[in-house]
């Protein structure tokens, strides 16, 4: 399995608005260029994603926080990690067992956001789940 290190630096946090997110991810994550601290202006009231580079011990699975879904406002950011696996990007939630895929990182993250919303809908619609998924339901309710 080929793992490409997407973040060249560690322990740096970047936050930026939704409008800039796609361009940032598409332009930066698919290239080998490094980050610049002044790349993006901070918008304190409109964070969509904040990105934090991986620790040295976990350098193949980069981490990112989702602060908004399409229709659900989160009161706590959902931490996800992602990695490149051959020609596909895999994005996974850290705290519950859900993941999505995409041809690029933006698509993988967008799909994961949709997937999380669908999971929340499913979990809200019933209590007839296995113990594992009832635990997930209890966990995910802390985020909304």
């Amino acid at each position, binding site marked *: 399995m080929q793992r490409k290190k997407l973040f060249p630096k560690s322990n740096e946090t970047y936050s930026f608005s939704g409008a800039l997110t796609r361009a940032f991810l598409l332009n930066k994550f698919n290239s080998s260029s490094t980050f610049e601290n002044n790349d993006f202006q901070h918008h304190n009231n409109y964070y969509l994603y904040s990105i934090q580079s991986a620790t040295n011990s976990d350098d193949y699975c980069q981490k990112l926080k989702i602060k908004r879904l399409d229709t659900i406002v989160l009161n706590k950011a959902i931490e996800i990690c992602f990695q490149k696996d051959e020609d596909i990007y895999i994005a996974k939630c850290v705290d519950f067992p859900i993941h999505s895929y995409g041809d690029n990182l933006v698509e993988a993250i*967008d799909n994961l956001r949709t997937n999380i919303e669908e999971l929340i809908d499913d979990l809200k619609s019933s209590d007839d789940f296995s113990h594992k998924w009832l635990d997930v339901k209890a966990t995910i309710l802390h985020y909304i």
Partner: protein
Amino acid sequence: MLNAQFDSDNVVKICKRKLKISFRCNKEYNGWYMIGKRRVARITIPKGKKNISPGLYKGMAEDLLLSTSEFDNLMSCPLSGDGYKKIVQKRL
């Protein structure tokens, strides 16, 4: 690992046929495996992937609470729907 032998449409068809999973089809296929009325496993399958990477294949196996070798068996026929149900019931 038999990931090179299947595409994502194969996985969807086998999940529907053997495991009776009904998929919600938006950006990806998402579906629950149910025992009776209880939802016990949820699988996510990307649309239209002709090549299934090892990580993707392993992810789908884990969604169904299977190892990759058990998922191989599910995909390539030795593992039936009833056989899968017995495996999953032990892991709940």
